[in-house]
């Protein structure tokens, strides 16, 4: 048994992201490298035959519960725009909250509605 599945798993995740970046840049696709890397890892996991959890799974299960932490530095970037956010507070807050609410509800109602209809049919 590998005694360093975490380090190897991290390496797998990094490699998937780099392959993703490479594919995206080469083909000029409009998605970020990590999202393409997610697809790369999905393909790798689907092709796997072993019953044992892969090193990538070991790391994912430890890393993902703390995903909120990883957004803190970017979120703190708000500090640079406090005056701008203050001067157009109403359109900013209404635009952000309004668009988010409508997007959430549209997705939930369309997907939820179609799933319920599928079950009844």
């Amino acid at each position: 048994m590998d005694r360093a599945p975490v380090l190897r798993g991290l390496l797998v995740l990094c490699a998937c992201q780099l392959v993703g970046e490479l594919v995206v840049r080469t083909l000029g696709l409009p998605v970020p490298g990590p999202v393409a890397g997610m697809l790369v890892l999905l393909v790798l996991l689907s092709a796997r035959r072993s019953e044992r959890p892969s090193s990538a799974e070991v790391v994912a299960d430890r890393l993902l519960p703390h995903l909120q932490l990883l957004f803190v530095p970017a979120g703190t970037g708000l500090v640079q725009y406090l005056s701008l956010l203050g001067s157009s507070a109403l359109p900013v807050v209404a635009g952000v909250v309004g668009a988010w609410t409508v997007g959430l509800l549209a997705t939930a109602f369309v997907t939820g509605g179609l799933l319920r209809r599928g079950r009844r049919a």
Partner: protein
Amino acid sequence: MTLDPAGAWQAVLGSPLLGLALTLAAYELGRALSRRTGGHPLATPVLVAVVVTVATLLLLDVPYADYLEGAQVVSLLLGPATVALAVPLHRELPRVRAAALPLLAGLVAGSLAAATTGIVLTRVLGGSEELVRSMAPKAATTPVAIALAETVGGVPALAAVLAILTGIVGAMAGPSLLTLLRVHDERVRGFAIGVASHGIGTARALQESATVGAFSGLGMALNALTTALALPLLALTPLLG
């Protein structure tokens, strides 16, 4: 030996480690508050952590660039963590396949609804043209929002801020709003949170259950692509014309 407390304080403030320590401490505080309050929306760890970090930087008069020098280590892991979302998604793949059509229909509806509502509301309420155009791509994950803002005449940095605000709103209010509306299907809850509030919403969705997290990660990834494809088309309409 001469004592130099002022110099020592300056050295601490200038250390890149400060940014890292501050980030970790603020997040731990957020987690503790969240546990104490039984997961109250206002105690969402990412929200608490951002508020505490911003307040500390303002109080100590530390520029964001100096803070980021140390905090960048944390940001750097965001890419591999996004890749890791393939793991919960892989475990749910049979259920994703079975629900493929409802998911795709909800994706298109949610993506277009969010973009047009953002544009219209911001414009009606007197936002500047720059703000309107930076608002359009914000439901997509931050790097996509940055890239798209440029193509539709917005400001990339502003689009990033709006995307992050959207994510924080999603992490804070998404689960409670869905419960209020009696949306209990875990697949629908996750997917809607991911489409509307990308990675930050997904981080919160993962706390609810592995299934909710998996469908949220899927929604985030698919909406990154959908917004990227739809926005150049919206730019041809009177909305952004």
